[in-house]
């Protein structure tokens, strides 16, 4: 995957879009327009954008509870994602799913998932179907370091390896599962190290570096597709925000946070753009475009109607 200035700028803009989308959500929470809970991926945008840029549009994506980045990186419309979060009928799931249960089959996006580790077997099953039908698409499953402690991780990776399923497991290791530091939750130094137990190849990359993510995932996806076997890619990243709303982050130091903020993926990407000869003005313009898009999306979403009573109580069976 060649990385010219134009491409880089477009990825940057998408990352920016994700960041601003969530900042807008925070705003809506604060003024009481948004209910429920949701999990921001602020700081992890490069991972979502990088992996999905390396994938085909027809590959199938399974996400977890921290899925806004994956959704927007996949090209879902911000207005409809926002509408879903706001519970409106124009949302991708008509308001039924919300942040943790959002799906768009049109985008080959098999859903975010509110059960930690719950999406791992589902994505593995998608890969099973792809192999069964001899299609060349693969499945891509996003999950966190914490999720690697669920039995589903172990059971699914084992089956994927045994059966040669075309699935890329992407572990976004952001060092914490909620408040739990990965060192206190996983008995190994890395998540990738666990794949040995299933005879699965792995790679690790800096998840805050867009080029590193692009490179590692392009390579991994190529392998999965050509060799028809699973691969585990561990991306080391960091969420600058709390786990969910109202997280005072007592489990980590402000020092650590500011160190990590200095390596923020967006900042890194800006520096890289300048290196590639993209001017500050063009970067600012790109930021402005993203900002406009989000403002527009929020307005559209907020203006949309709710579905009605019959819609809420019906439709449980196909």
């Amino acid at each position: 995957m060649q990385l010219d200035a134009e491409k880089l700028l477009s990825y940057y803009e998408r990352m920016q879009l994700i960041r601003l989308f969530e900042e807008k959500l925070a705003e809506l929470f604060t003024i009481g327009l948004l209910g429920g809970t949701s999990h921001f991926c602020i700081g992890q945008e490069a991972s979502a954008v990088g992996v999905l840029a390396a994938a085909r549009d027809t590959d199938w994506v399974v996400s977890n509870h921290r899925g806004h980045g994956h959704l927007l990186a996949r090209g879902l419309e911000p207005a409809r994602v926002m509408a879903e979060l706001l519970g409106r009928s124009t949302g991708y799931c008509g308001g039924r799913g919300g942040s943790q249960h959002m799906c768009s089959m049109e985008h080959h996006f098999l859903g975010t998932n509110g059960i930690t580790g719950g999406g791992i077997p589902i994505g593995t099953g998608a890969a099973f179907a792809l192999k069964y039908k001899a299609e060349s698409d693969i499945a891509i499953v996003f999950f966190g370091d914490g999720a690697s402690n669920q039995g589903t991780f172990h059971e699914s990776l084992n089956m994927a390896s045994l059966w040669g399923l075309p699935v890329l497991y992407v572990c976004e290791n952001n060092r914490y599962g909620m408040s739990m530091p990965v060192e206190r939750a996983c008995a190994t130094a890395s998540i990738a190290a666990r794949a040995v137990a299933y005879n699965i190849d792995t790679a690790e990359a800096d998840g805050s570096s867009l080029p590193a993510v692009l490179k590692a995932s392009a390579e991994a996806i190529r392998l999965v597709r050509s060799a028809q076997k699973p691969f585990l890619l561990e991306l080391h990243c960091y969420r600058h925000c709390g786990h969910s709303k109202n997280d005072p982050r007592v489990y980590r130091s402000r020092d650590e946070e500011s160190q990590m903020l200095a390596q923020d993926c967006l900042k890194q990407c800006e520096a890289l753009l300048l290196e590639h000869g993209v001017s500050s003005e063009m970067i600012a313009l790109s930021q402005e475009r993203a900002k406009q898009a989000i403002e527009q999306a929020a307005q559209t979403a907020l203006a949309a109607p709710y579905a009605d009573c019959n819609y809420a109580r019906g439709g449980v069976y196909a």
Partner: protein
Amino acid sequence: MPEGKTQYFYSQAVAQALDEELARDENVFLLGEDIGLYGGAFGVTRGLFEKYGSKRMVETPISENSFTGLAVGAAMLGLRPVVEIMFMDFIALALDQLLNSAGKLHYMYDGQVKVPLVLRTPGGAKGGYGPSHSQMLSNLLVGIPGLKIIAPSTPRQVKGMLKAAIRDDNPVIVIENKRLYPLKGEIPEGEYLLPLDKAELVSPGNDMTIISYSAMTPVCLAIKEAVLGVGLDLEVLDLVSLQPLDQESIFTSVRKTGRVLIVEEACKTGGVGAEVAALIAEHCLDALEAPIMRVAAADVPIPSSLELEKYVLPQNDDILHAIKTLRDY
């Protein structure tokens, strides 16, 4: 039972349904432990591996939760997995994927996906298998939105309904029963499908309604014969579908007889029988001439000892006693 026609075992009926659907639609595949050469713990799938090979007969590691979840994912992409859980007792391991994925996805993803998954599993006590291999766990499943649940009691039912379940676009749990596998019954010639939401009035009668399902239905039919002699004419209604319940058939029968006994192999508390009783108490109260009674397993684990097992599972005497109580009321 009419003479002369071919009789098949319940287990054969299941195998026929699987065989026919595997042959008909190449998106259908079976998934489970030891379902290949071994033929499954009860020999139900014997011969299918030789016929369909390892692509269609997928033997899994012992990983109930994830192979059920894998089937959900495969179903979302259009395959039609038929999962076998070797003993119903093990379904608790897979419950998260049934509750939070299979049953919910179609609704919560706003109809964008279908989950045409079938999960077959034998419940019930076979005699001496003990606490972790004998349970009828219908109670755990009924009430999970989005699942269809059937518990056919005859070879004819199970064949036609399993075929329909495989063609249905929803997750369907098929509760088989170890004690039914070796029972014989007639199966119609040629292909047929049966609806997934209908009770079956297996034997009409006037004096009292007996509602049952799975292996308790043949027991109740035998009891019907037994009490004919004392002039009692029981109506035996087989629920067949546990979710959704065929309320109309239930209410019609209750309104006709005014007396109801519900017989099930599951533990008494919190089960299908309770739901049926509650529905009747809501919708047919005026028709009732006596309390609604339930005969079910005691609310304890099922002991291994064959002798002790009897005291825990519903016995003929318990049913007869309840019938007498209702008659004399």
